[in-house]
């Protein structure tokens, strides 16, 4: 057996594995602990009392609790990229090689420069953020904020990317149970035996809850034996899942619960292929909250001195971890339960210095314990704590009746009673109710399907916990439709309960309510004097309960003090709103797999891998990766590549994968009538074998989307959408089909992924196509006229769809083949096009050619423009109703001074035009009153050998030839531009029809 110098480790007992010593480092020093320890218990065993400095005043702080409610013992766990700030030492499981550092101290924990903040305490009182740093505003950013960050704050983030993986998963069950104490285990037994699918979540790494520290006798067995039996029985049930290291942190609508599983936090590095943490979304028909209760402190001067500890935590360290937080312990209690710490201390061979009991009477049993143990029982309250170098040294007691006493001790256990953990039950804006008999808030109802049991419901006796848990588990299973035999209920005695409420002992010196945020009792009183009496105001003004512990040990005391100073009762004062998560959850767990290159799902075009082989540069457009341009050796920048691609198309032939366009099959006898209603122009009149450009409006008259739609058969249209709106147009069309026009017999299917579609453009397009298409197909202007659309046979027998449409202004076709042939099509186009100098082009060249041709796209279809604004007003049919028709006629959408699409070019041909530049008339001052529009799309036009663009400008089309200023304050530019026809290239359209 190896103990190292764990001087405060008991020789026997505890749920630690003494055969498995673990070495760890705290603030650079080496220590030993055992498997089964938390970092906190190992520090206790090694006699470390000072574990951090406080948030505002940098006061030395020790370990207050033994659970996830801990406000003080926050450490930076691990190092380097895995450094994790604000980790509770009380829940961090010890592992070999653990490294931790205390927070908020500089340069060291024992000598902290910033503790001079205590001398300036008046500026750190309640509301100090609001009072001190209000003016002038720029001082905030430059001086105050950085200074406060340095002086006050929590741990340091790693500053580099987290190397570990996180994931997310769903789980489904009949009954989810939060907590595996006596109530939770009993609930799981009842539900599991009845045949229910059960998930039991326990945030600790060992099942048993308070039984682990307080023991007891259940069904005549020692608690540990009963737990082992219960766990064995549950483990044997195939539909019961026990999740250790898992906190149920939130409840959401429809019986969905959030849980965080710390899968590998107990290891220095997760094993290969494993995650560090997993976020669970649990869908459960019923939920039993058996999350227990949290022992509450009593607020008195010096209550934050290292060595002051919750009485129950002290029992946890002694009984569960065989670690002694002190040698000579004083106990300050206002209730019967606190006395168990005196019993535990005596049983462990420790000295009890005194019990300070705020109640008027102490039971005969405890009186005899005191006389046997040789310690006094003092009726009164702790009024001050005298701190030595190692923490608690002497305790001043104000005795009932006015006298004073002093007690020498190196540890002070405090018990102010217990607060049921009412978080989960209150997350749907539930307000817990006050129970006078236990002086605590208990759940008052809960979200649908949820019930609290045991201590979480205010039932503090062991027998009551088992009974409530068992009954709740049985009822939950029954409600979920499970009716198996639940067997017999576990039985135990109930302990006596007696408590005299005591929240705050008046005295000199700082008495802390919220230790993590350094909020004192006098801060609460100050808030009241300044008018912040509502608990929600109190919380925000003092920051009480807003730290990472969410006030688990402080909220009730804070509002009790507020109640006292306002003369109201505690229930009248009320609680703040409870919100999830119950414990902090790493953002990484919410992100899961979705980070870096997996931030979102990506879509690849059918020719993606071919394009990658060609060295294409890809751009993210929505979820898609699209080839943006194909650089060639020697090209100095993107512009050179793009210009080459454009010239190649305009002089020869090029092709571009346009499979990203949304593609929808519109079938049915009423397909034409349906399209007439969703487009502003007519489609029922479109001949089979023809394509037509269509424009859709929203019902408010604004343009929604555009694209070409072809009629492939009498009852079959093939509709295309923009890349960006593909999914939304499908949704819109389904709405039209199912909701607006259900009388029409029409069927819709997305075929976006079915077809690999390529645009082939340039004067040599036909030459290239003749190589690909079966010679029997007539591609002549007569045989396949502009806007023709039909199925063709390719060489080799494959069937394809061919559309004679042009986005570039050149002679062009779009050809579709089934997607698994997409890559072959790209390769074959390259092969067949070699004699014609075929050039693959990307989205940039596509964009250049559409701007040269004056085609509108995303920047012009921007959710504010009408068909008229885009120069497409004449397309609006007057012979039929269509979506957006009536609203498009509104005055504001038809006034003559609307901003409309116009061509724009700088008067200085060498100047670069920039999108976003504002249009200001010559001689006017730039500003909103003279702003007439802006430049929407720009490109360098190889045809015109200058930068050109499109803009949305007031009366733009009437102002061709006018020279105005392009004012670009963002880039500090201001230059003259001329309005021109938006069709810069081949305005007669001869090339695309030729």
């Amino acid at each position, binding site marked *: 057996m190896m103990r190292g110098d764990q001087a405060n480790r008991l020789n026997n007992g505890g749920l630690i594995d003494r055969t498995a010593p673990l070495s760890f480092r705290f603030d650079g020093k080496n220590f030993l602990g055992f498997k089964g320890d938390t970092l906190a218990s190992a520090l206790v065993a090694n006699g470390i009392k000072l574990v951090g400095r406080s948030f505002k005043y940098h006061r030395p702080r020790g370990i207050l609790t033994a659970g996830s409610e801990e406000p003080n013992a926050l450490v930076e766990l691990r190092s380097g990229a895995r450094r994790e700030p604000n980790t509770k030492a009380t829940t961090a499981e010890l592992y070999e090689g653990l490294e931790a550092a205390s927070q908020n101290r500089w340069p060291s924990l024992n000598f902290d420069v910033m503790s001079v903040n205590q001398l300036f305490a008046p500026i750190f009182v309640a509301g100090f953020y609001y009072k001190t740093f209000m003016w002038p505003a720029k001082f905030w950013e430059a001086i105050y904020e950085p200074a406060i960050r340095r002086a006050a704050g929590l741990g340091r983030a790693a500053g580099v990317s987290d190397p570990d993986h996180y994931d997310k998963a769903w789980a489904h069950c009949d009954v989810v149970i939060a907590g595996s104490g006596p109530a939770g285990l009993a609930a799981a037994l009842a539900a599991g035996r009845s045949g229910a699918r059960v998930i039991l979540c326990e945030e600790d790494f060992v099942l048993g809850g308070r039984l682990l520290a307080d023991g007891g006798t259940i069904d005549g067995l020692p608690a540990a034996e009963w737990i082992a039996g219960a766990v064995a029985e549950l483990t044997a049930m195939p539909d019961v899942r026990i999740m250790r290291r898992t906190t149920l942190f939130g409840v959401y609508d429809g019986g969905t619960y959030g849980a965080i599983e710390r899968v590998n936090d107990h290891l220095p590095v997760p094993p290969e292929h494993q995650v560090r943490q997993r976020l669970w979304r649990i869908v459960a028909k019923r939920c039993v909250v058996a999350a227990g209760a949290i022992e509450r402190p009593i607020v008195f001067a010096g209550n934050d001195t290292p060595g002051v500890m919750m009485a129950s935590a002290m029992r946890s360290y002694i009984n569960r971890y065989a670690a002694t937080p002190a040698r000579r312990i004083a106990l300050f209690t206002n209730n019967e339960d606190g006395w168990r710490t005196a019993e535990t201390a005596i049983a462990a061979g420790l000295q009890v210095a005194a019990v300070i009991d705020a109640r008027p009477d102490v039971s005969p049993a405890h009186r005899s314990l005191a006389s046997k143990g040789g310690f006094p029982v003092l009726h009164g309250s702790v009024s001050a704590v005298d701190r030595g170098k190692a923490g608690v040294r002497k305790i001043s007691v104000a005795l009932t009746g006015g006298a004073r006493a002093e007690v020498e001790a190196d540890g002070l256990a405090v018990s102010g009673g217990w607060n049921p953990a009412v978080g989960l039950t209150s997350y749907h804006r539930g307000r817990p109710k006050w129970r006078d008999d236990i002086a605590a808030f208990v759940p008052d109802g809960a979200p649908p399907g949820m019930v609290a049991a045991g201590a979480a419901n205010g039932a503090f006796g062991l027998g009551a916990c088992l009974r409530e848990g068992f009954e709740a588990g049985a009822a939950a299973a029954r409600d979920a439709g499970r009716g198996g035999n639940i067997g017999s209920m576990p039985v135990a005695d109930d302990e006596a309960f007696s408590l005299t409420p005591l929240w705050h002992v008046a005295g000199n010196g700082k008495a802390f309510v919220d230790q993590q945020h350094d909020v004192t009792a006098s801060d609460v009183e100050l808030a009241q004097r300044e008018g912040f009496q509502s608990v929600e105001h109190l919380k925000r003004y003092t920051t009480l309960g807003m730290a990472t512990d969410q006030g688990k040990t402080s909220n009730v005391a804070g509002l009790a003090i507020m109640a006292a100073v306002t003369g109201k009762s505690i229930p009248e004062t009320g609680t703040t709103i409870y919100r999830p998560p119950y414990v902090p959850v790493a953002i990484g767990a919410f992100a899961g797999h979705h980070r870096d290159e997996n931030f979102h799902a990506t879509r690849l075009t059918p020719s993606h891998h071919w394009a990658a082989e060609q060295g294409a540069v890809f751009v993210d457009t929505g979820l898609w990766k699209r080839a943006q341009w194909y650089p060639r050796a020697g090209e100095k920048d993107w512009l050179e590549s793009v210009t080459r691609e454009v010239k190649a198309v305009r002089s020869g032939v090029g092709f571009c994968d346009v499979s990203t366009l949304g593609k929808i099959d519109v079938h049915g006898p009423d397909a034409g009538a349906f399209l007439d209603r969703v487009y502003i122009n007519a489609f029922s009149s479109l001949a089979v074998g023809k394509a037509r450009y269509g424009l859709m409006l929203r019902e408010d008259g604004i343009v929604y989307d555009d694209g070409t739609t072809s009629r492939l058969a009498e009852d079959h249209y093939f509709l295309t959408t923009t890349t960006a709106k593909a999914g939304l147009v499908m949704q819109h069309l389904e709405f039209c089909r199912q909701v607006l026009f259900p009388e029409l017999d029409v069927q819709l299917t997305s075929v976006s992924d*079915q077809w690999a579609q390529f645009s082939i453009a340039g004067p040599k397009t036909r030459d290239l196509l003749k190589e690909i298409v079966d010679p029997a197909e007539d591609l002549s202007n007569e045989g396949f006229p502009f806007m023709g659309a039909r199925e063709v046979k390719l060489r080799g027998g494959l069937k394809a769809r061919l559309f004679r449409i042009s986005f570039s202004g050149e002679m062009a076709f779009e050809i579709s083949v089934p997607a698994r042939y997409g890559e072959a099509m790209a390769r074959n186009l390259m092969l067949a096009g070699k004699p014609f100098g075929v050039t693959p082009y990307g989205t940039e060249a596509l964009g250049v050619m559409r701007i040269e041709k004056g085609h509108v796209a995303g920047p012009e279809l921007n959710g504010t423009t009408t068909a008229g604004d885009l120069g497409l007003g004449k397309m609006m049919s007057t012979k039929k109703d269509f979506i957006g028709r009536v609203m498009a006629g509104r005055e504001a959408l038809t006034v003559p001074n609307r901003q409309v699409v116009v061509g724009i070019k700088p008067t200085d041909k060498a100047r670069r035009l920039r999108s976003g530049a504002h249009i200001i008339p010559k001689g006017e001052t730039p500003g909103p009153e003279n702003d007439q529009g802006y430049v929407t799309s720009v490109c360098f036009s190889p045809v015109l050998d200058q930068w050109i663009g499109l803009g949305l400008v007031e009366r733009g089309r009437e102002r061709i030839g006018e020279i105005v200023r392009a004012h670009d304050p963002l880039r500090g530019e201001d230059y003259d531009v001329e309005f021109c026809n938006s069709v810069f290239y081949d305005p007669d359209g001869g090339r695309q029809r030729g």
Partner: protein
Amino acid sequence: MADFSWDIRSPLDRALVAGPYGAQGEAGVSLTEIRNFDLVQVMARRGKAGETIAAAKARLGAAAPETPKAVSIADATVIWSGPDQFFVLSKGGKHSIDALASVFAGSASLSDQSHARALISISGDKARAMLAKLSSIDLHPDVFGVGAAAATSMDHTSVTLWRGDDRNGQAVFNLLVFATFAESLWHTILDSAAEHGVTIGHSEDLA
């Protein structure tokens, strides 16, 4: 005249590397891509749901499911894909869109989806544990039995999921995913399965 061929290439052709992946030892998850299938979406026309089902039965010998189910017959699987619509999944052209056109003439609209999807078959001890990371639906054997189907989403991507016949005593989950999303979802699947150990392959045969 150029001499070229029309090679067919699955959307997972590049991403799929046959063999073991992830944690070593017995693979908990088995992933098989099924390649080159015929998939036809059949959508009943208004008021013709009954006729469509009758036509399917006459042709395939099995009633097309009217609820989220998948029905396997000798040479095809019929999978519910939404109200009054279903997929016919088959091989070798026997139930291709051209072959089915006359069967449903007048009763339903057909859309060829053969190239619009990738098909992944998932099995193994840990198949459910892996799928729980991707799918929000309950795959417990009592809830999602043999023949159960779902139109659902994984990783924000629409999928069709159904449970085929058990193989070697293990559940088999079949997943149709949009072709352009397939590689992305494949990587997500591998990421989710890695801790369980994976064995990867592809096949030309429908399960």
